[in-house]
Structures are given as structure tokens and as C-alpha cells.
């Protein structure tokens, strides 16, 4: 990666964070400053951004006029709140009773092995994260995995590799498409300049 794109990316990240903070600041106005609104506020941030960044905890504590540690204390108690951004394709392995009886833990292990991360973690390229979840409510399809919004029922260890491969192929396809477009554009630009 060239130095220029690296810089671009970090300034891009900075801009993203700034946008997130502004957005949350705006949304906070819809909530009262009473303690009972703490969990609904945290849910709003979690639902919108899929995680709760430390800097947003400070914002929430200012809004409710309570200590940041009190906000963190509550947020860290509940399963719903995450403090790290998930992968682009969050893999949620159902650990409900029916899935357990049908070998849900073996499916989880296969994902951990193929992605080389443990449950609760995200791959270094931020493509995948693995999470155990309570019953997702499709017991008849056990064992079940939810990737993004899609439910994959009747999972088998041998299907794991295929699923991951599918995403990787899709990504490569997108990358090739992007490259092709970039090349076309370059060519067009060059042609235009040539003219």
C-alpha cells in the first residue's frame, strides 16, 4: 500500500468517527437526561453503529450527568453491548438447546478453525467476527448460523468452508470489478488528456 492511500485511510477513519459523534450528539436530544434513559441510549448507539466506542461513553455520561464509569458499568453488564466494531460479516452461531443437541459447538469450532480467531473476536482484516448467540428461534433448522442477516439452517462442518469461501470469492469479484473500473477510468482520463 502506498503512503498516500494509507494517509487517506486514516483521515477517512477520523472523518468517520467525527460523523458518528455528530450523529450521536444529534440523536441524544431525543432522550431525557434521566438515568432510566441510559439503556435506551446505549441501545440506540449499538443498533446504529454495532458497537459503543469509549469516546461515545463519555458523551452519554455528559448527557445524563453521571460518571463515565457508571455508563461503562451498565454497558459492560449486558450482552447486547459491544466495545469493538464487529467484522463486515458477523458470524453468529446459535447456542440454543436444540442447536446444542444437534452439534452447534462443532459448527462454532469449525468457524474458529477456518477463520483462525476465537469466538468474540474479529479477523485482522475486519471481514469476519464470530459470536455465540442465544436461541435465534429456528430450532427446527438446528444447527443454525446467522451471517449478517441471513439464516443458514441445517449447518454441517463441511458447509463452513464453503460459506466463508463464498464471501471471499464475492470480495475478490468486487475488487476485480473495482480495479477494472479504475483502469477504464484511467484509460478514459488518459484518452481525454491525450486529446
Amino acid at each position, binding site marked *: 500500500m502506498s503512503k498516500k492511500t494509507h494517509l487517506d485511510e486514516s483521515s477517512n477513519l477520523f472523518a468517520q468517527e467525527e460523523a458518528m459523534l455528530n450523529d450521536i450528539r444529534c440523536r441524544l436530544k431525543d432522550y431525557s437526561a434521566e438515568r*432510566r434513559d441510559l*439503556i435506551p441510549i446505549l441501545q440506540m448507539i449499538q443498533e446504529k453503529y454495532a458497537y459503543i466506542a469509549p469516546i461515545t461513553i463519555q458523551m452519554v455520561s455528559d448527557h445524563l450527568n453521571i460518571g463515565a464509569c457508571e455508563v461503562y458499568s451498565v454497558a459492560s453488564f449486558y450482552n447486547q453491548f459491544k466495545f469493538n466494531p464487529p467484522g463486515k460479516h458477523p458470524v453468529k452461531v446459535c447456542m440454543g438447546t436444540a442447536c446444542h*443437541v444437534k452439534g452447534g459447538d*462443532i459448527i462454532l469450532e469449525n468457524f474458529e*478453525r477456518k477463520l483462525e480467531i476465537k469466538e468474540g473476536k474479529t479477523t485482522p482484516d475486519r471481514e469476519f467476527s464470530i459470536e455465540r448467540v442465544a436461541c*435465534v428461534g429456528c430450532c*427446527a433448522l438446528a444447527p443454525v448460523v446467522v451471517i449478517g442477516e441471513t439464516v443458514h439452517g441445517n449447518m454441517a462442518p463441511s458447509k463452513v468452508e464453503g460459506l466463508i469461501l463464498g464471501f471471499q470469492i464475492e470480495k475478490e469479484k468486487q475488487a476485480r470489478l473495482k480495479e477494472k473500473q479504475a483502469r477504464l477510468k484511467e484509460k478514459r482520463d488518459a484518452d481525454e488528456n491525450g486529446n
Partner: protein
Amino acid sequence: MKMEINQAFDKICKDADAHIKRLSLIKGPRISIGMATCGIASGAIDTKKAFEEALKEQGIDGQIQTVGCIGHCYAEPVVIIDHPDSGFPPIFYHHVTPGKAKMIVQSFLIDGDPLFEYLLGATKENELIPQIYDFPRFSQEKRIILQKCGIIDPEDINAYIDEGGYSGLARAFQLAPDEIISEIISSGIRGRGGAGFPTGKKWGFAREAEGQDKIMILNADEGDPGAYMDRTILESNPHQILEGMIICAYAIGAGSAIVYVRSEYPRAIEMISGAISQAEELGLLGNSILGSSFDLKISVFKGSGAFVCGEETALIQSLEGERGMPQHRPPYPVQHGLGNRPTVINNVKTIASVPAILNNGGDWYRSIGTKDSPGTAVFSIVGNVLHAGLVEIPMGVDLKTLIFDICGGIPDKKKFKAVQIGGPSGGCLSSDFLDTPIDFDSLAGAGAMIGSGGMVVLDEDNCMVNIARYFLEFTQNESCGKCTFCRIGTYHLLRILDRITKGQGREGDLEQLKTLSETIIEGSLCGLGKTAPNPVLTSLRYFRDEYEAHVLEKRCPACVCRSLTAFYIDLDKCARGCDACVGSCPVDAIFTTKNRKKGVDQALCVKCGECQVACPPEYNAVIRVSPPEKAPIIEKSVN
């Protein structure tokens, strides 16, 4: 006043009736698709799309209606087609994939052939097709709570009203609050959240409690793994719950109510929120309900995923924006609850039973079920059972009838081993208990409990130690960490069970499991800790031989615990020429020797069982044994 209320309600009923009549005037077939979470997960969205496309392609005028869940999860996606012109009654189809949907449109709606191979039965009596209500899965049920689930459109308040909905509320308003409470007391209904406390008594305490601003909370923080009836009811018939809540609030004198529902249930939240606005529009909620002097506001609060918040004091903590840690009782919430106000917290199933009690009277309710546990119970039956799903039965039906007659028994001719009732706080019962009637006290007497109504059927291929470990891992993960016994005690129980399933069990482990379990039950602060050891204690009591096999012989009798089992390929059965097992192995542990023998590298094998599935049934050559030493060793390179 009473007359005005009746008039207001009559008008609502007339409007609803007119609305439903208008809908039924639309020509053509009506297709109802079950679209609760379970249906959607099984592909109901694609099925719906396929129907829409097929109708359009064929140019058929028809309506597609989404309904909730009828509780027949084994059959999802489920579709009911009412096509009067065909001469057939409304037909219930099961496992309707998009392909089948297109075929049904072509064959049934155009050619008039209902495709007998895909249908389960008719939903009305007729002479052509057997009626589903004659099947044991329907006929032996008694539906009060689930009565309209999967039948009516949950997003249309008129559909509920047209089926007699909100008439319980209209009747409640004819009574004084104390009269309602006596009606509930005389019904004998006990709380369906697990503990079985008499609901009428609870309401009475709250009514008598000093303090203004009383509050009613619906506990829909259903967290048991494998129990999903509360979600289904919220998704399939939210108005029945609202009606029950309004009656409760009126009886105890509460001006506000809260639906506390897990955030993992987005569709249930959507349905109940939509139902609240519809009820407000019709004047069934809000200020001076039905023209009376009673005001009620209902809001929705999303639980953030902590099992312990199903405990009422923890639930209140989380509503107040705190960590959901249970508090010592007394004081009880009916005296000092949310914000110190008198608070009634009722489970979804309890509240959903209330409208029917008001409509039919307490004596009617008491005539159902048993003397000490009147009414019905809803179970979500999963695991190794043929017709898994939601079942509502009168209390007192025995376990055998429920599992074998109503739910079709165990698939694949396997032998029944145990049934786990009540989720992580319940217990495992062996076949000796199949005659046990299902009611609060009989199950508690056997060491299990109705709990939230989760029921897992286990067959000979399930390991009881593994199941106990599973539930304990769940409660240990969900322990709030406040009190010593639950925080550290369950951790040690889990460690011991973990060791046993890995073949590292020690002498004295079983005794320690027992004594530690008993002390945790006695010493814990809240219901979570007091019931967490139940799965261990009951499985230890009824399946001690399995525990002993693990500890003493390092053997898992059901061949489940992975450290205690090994796979091998029976060379007498193996076709040798086929490589199905080799291809299926996710870790390349299966090898072929020079003379085409197949072997399993035990050091690499992760015991996922894929090879056993892959091996063609005519060979069936992959064998799982316990202890692992029983697997013959095949050398990789034979010279």
C-alpha cells in the same frame, strides 16, 4: 357509565366487522403465510415472494395475508390457502418452499388439483380432505393462550376484534376492580413465569399497597435457551396481550404499563408497538378508555440481553438504568417496585390468559387443568421429537401423552432417554417419570419445574452429563456475579462437569457435585442461583450410571463427549473405492493406505461426525466408539 362503555365497544365491533367483511369481498383465493420469526427463518419471505410472482405471472386476483405462528415449527414454512371457488375447504400446506409455492399456484389455483402430497390437512370440516383438527397434534391441545395465533393477521386490530377480541376488557369495565381480582382469584390461575405464584393474590397485594402511580409490567424477557412461546404470542397475537395488560392495570389501579421485551426479538417489538398505536387510535388505550374514566399508557422497553433480568427485582433495576442485579426480597415489587411504586410484574402467558378468564368466568378456567394448577400450559418442545414446536395443553396431561401422542414421539426409531423440562432452572426426568402429570407441583416434586416451558426431548444418542454441562454453562455465563454462591459456586460445578466430560473425572467428584449443588440452592440470593444446580442434581439422581461411566471407566455411553470417543472406519464394511469420508473431513484426518485401507488419524480428528454422515448408508462403515481406545489403529504407511 356502563351503558356508554357498551355503546363505545359495540361501535368498535361493528367497524371491525365491516372492515373484515370488506376484506372477504375481495375475489379470489386467500393465501395466509406464517411469518413469525420461525417462519421467516425457515424461508417464508422467499415463499411469499414466490406466491406473489406466481399470482402475477398467472394473472390471478388473490390476496396474500401474513399471519403469525401456529406453533407447528416442524412444518415451517406453513401456508393456508382458502380458495372457495375450487370446491375444496381451506387447506394447510407444510414445508412450502418457493418451488412448491409456484407448483401449488399452478396446480391448485389454476388446474384445481390441491396436490395431496404437499398438504397436511384441511382447516374446516369437509368430505374431501382429513381435517387437521382431528390429528392428535391439534385435537389433544387446548388452546386458550395460542387460540388465535397463526390464524389472524397480527397487524390488524380488526381481525382480533372480529374474533371476539377486547370483549374481555369491555366486560372488565362493567366490574369494579375488586370484582375483577376476585374473578382472577377464583380462576386459580398461577403465574406462568416459573414460580407459579397465584396471580389474583399478586394483583390483590398491589391493589391494597399504599402509594399512587402504580405500575404494571409485562415480563417478556424470555431468555431460556429453547423457549420461544412468549415471542410467538407477541408476534402472532399482540392484542390479546394488550387486552390482558389493560385489564390488569385497571384492576390494580395502574396508570402506566411497560412491555419489557428482549431486544433480540425485533419482530415482537415491532408487532407490539404497532398494536399499541392501533389500540390507541380506537380508544382502547390512552385517556378515558372506551369512554370510561380510566387512563392507561403502555410503553415498550427493550431488554439488553441478560438472562437474570427475567428475575423481577433485576428487571426493575435494568428499567431504572442500572446493572440488572437482583435485590434481596422483601420488599417485594408489589409494595416497592419500579421507582418505589407498587408494581405488578406478570409473564406473557399469564396476561394472555386474562381476557379469556374475564369472558368465560373464573369457574370456567378452574374447570380446565388440575385442582391446584388450573388452566393450560404452553410448552416449546424441541430436541429429538417428531413434531417439534409450541403446544398448549390443559395442566395434568402426562408427559407420555404430550411427547408420544401429541408430538409424535422420537424420530428414527430411537429410544427415549429423558426429557429436560424448564430450561436451565429445570431438571431432567427419565422414562420412569413419563406418567407424571404436567402441573406445577408434580413436576417440582420430581425435581424439575415448568419454568418458562422449555422442553427438550433426549434420546439414546444424547449424553446426560453433556446436557447438564450445557445448561450449567448457560447459567454460569448468565450469573450476574453479585452473590458468592452463584458467581463462584456455579463456576466450580461447571469445572467439575467439564472435567468429567473430558475424561478427567476424579473420585469424589460426584459427591462434590451433589453437596455443592445443594449448598448453592440454599445459599444463593435470587432464583437464578437457587435453581441453577437443578439440571445437575436431577441428572445425577436419575442417570448416575452415566456419570459413573464417565468418571470410572472414562467412557461416554452415548458416544457424545468428544474426548471420550473416537471414530474409525470398519474395513469389513468399507467399499474402499469410495472416498466420501476423505472428502468430507474438514481437517484431513482420514487417509488411505497403499492397499486402500481407510484410517483416521486420531491426533488430527476433531470428532465432528461429518464422515459418518458422508459415508453412504449402504456401507455405513464409520463407527463411533467410547472409550477411544476401542478404535483399531491403522498405520498410515504400510510397507
